[in-house]
Each structure stands twice: as C-alpha cells, then as structure tokens.
C-alpha cells in the first residue's frame, strides 16, 4: 500500500510540467544597453535570472548565463499593463527597468525605460513571451 502511494506520487510529479520560463530581452535600439530577465510564474511574475549590459560592463545573476559582476533581483511586479524590475547588489540599486505591455498583432509588445545609476538611462524595446 505504502509502495503504491510512493509510485503514484512519483508519477504525479513527472506528469506536472515544470513551470515554463522564457527570456525577455530589452535593448536600446542601437544596442548601447540591455536588460534581459528569465521570466516564469503562473499567476504572478517570477524572475529566475537577470543579465544586464552597458558598453563593456556586464552583470549576471547566474554565471551559467555568462560572466559578469554579481547582481540579484531586488523587486519586481507585473500587472495592470506594467512590468517593473529593480536589480540590486548588496542592497544597492544596479538597474531599474520600467516597461509598459500592450497587445500587439501577434505577440504582446513591451516598451519603456532602463536606468543604470552611474551609467545612464535609455528608452528600450523588448521581445519575449
């Protein structure tokens, strides 16, 4: 009986799809700066990884996504047509992303601003899920 329960639980786990994640890539049109985040979540936004670049300077929350200075997700919120993300390191703001999302012909479109203290601010356009 106990063995059957364990098998049922294991099969249930295999049948449940892992929460899907996809990269959202936000760039200034000339490529001067970018903010990419790995987004997932079912009812609310969940960010699993962040990569930020401006010129030769790169930050990455996960070395698996390439080299870069450390950065973590500070806070994020998606709702009411907005996506708001703050990236930090040791409590200090590294970058601030503010996006509006609206339905496009096929996929949603995202546009807004990226500010990196000490470096600059840019209008950005994003591609993603």
């Amino acid at each position, binding site marked *: 009986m106990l063995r059957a329960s364990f098998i049922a639980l294991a099969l249930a786990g295999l049948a449940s799809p892992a929460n899907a994640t996809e990269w959202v890539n936000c760039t200034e049109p000339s490529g001067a700066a970018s903010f990419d985040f790995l987004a997932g979540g079912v009812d609310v936004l969940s960010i699993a990884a962040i990569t930020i670049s401006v010129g030769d300077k790169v930050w990455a929350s996960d070395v698996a996504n390439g080299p870069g200075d450390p950065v973590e997700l500070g806070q994020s919120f998606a709702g009411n047509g907005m996506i708001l993300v703050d990236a930090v390191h040791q409590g200090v703001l590294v970058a601030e992303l503010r996006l509006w999302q609206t339905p*496009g012909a096929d996929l949603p479109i995202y546009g807004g*601003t990226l500010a990196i203290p000490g470096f600059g601010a840019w209008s950005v356009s994003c591609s993603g899920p």
Partner: protein
Amino acid sequence: MTRTLLRLLTTALLAIAAQPALATEWLDCTSFDFNQRIQLLAGGVDFHQFSAATLYVNGADWSTSPEAQPGQLLDIGQAFWDGKTLLVDLIDPAAQSVLAELRVFATSEGADDVKGGVLRVPGTGAWVVVCTGP
C-alpha cells in the same frame, strides 16, 4: 491710510504683471520607424497639463484642432503626467470610443532624460514609442 493702500495695490499689480505667461511645449512620441506619432501640447506648472493633441497612424491624421493641425477631430479623453508616468487616452468624439492609448515611463540618470513606452490604437496596432520634450 489711503496712500498705504494705494502703495500696496501698486506693488501687487506690479508683481502680477511680472509673472511670465506659463509656457507651452510639445511632447512628441514616435515609433522607431516614424510611421506612428502622437504629440501633446503641454503647459501649466511643470508642463503637466495638456491642451492639444495630434495623432498620426499609418498615414492618417487626427487633431484636437483641425483648423490648426489638419486631420480628423479627436479629443483628449483623460491624461495623467507626474514627471515619471504618462497616461493618455485620446477619444474619437463621434464614436465616443478610445482612439489611442499612450503609456510612457520617464526616467533620468546623469545627463540622460528619457521617456519610452507604448502606443496602442485599438483595431489598428500597437508600437513601442520614444518621446522627447518638454
């Protein structure tokens, strides 16, 4: 007493006359291919009030003042601008429906002041826009 009152009145009138008329400037938002454009005439304190608008989408023009800026008539339905968030809905007064929605964030860092967001025209399309001014 009368001389004092007269002096005070004169001072007040001179102070009022010295106030500059509040300036107006255009806020201009365009798509990256320049085929879509929305302009808002901003005035008031910190340019937070809009008194006129024009819209250009895929070759068609709209304007709050067609006699000044040719196009079909539109109205500013609602607008909000606090220096960081800009929300504007333009209305087709004939159909009493939303003609266009503009949603923009503004931010600054060092010498950079930028505004970016999205323009959506229901039934037609949606575009990322970059804005300049005021």
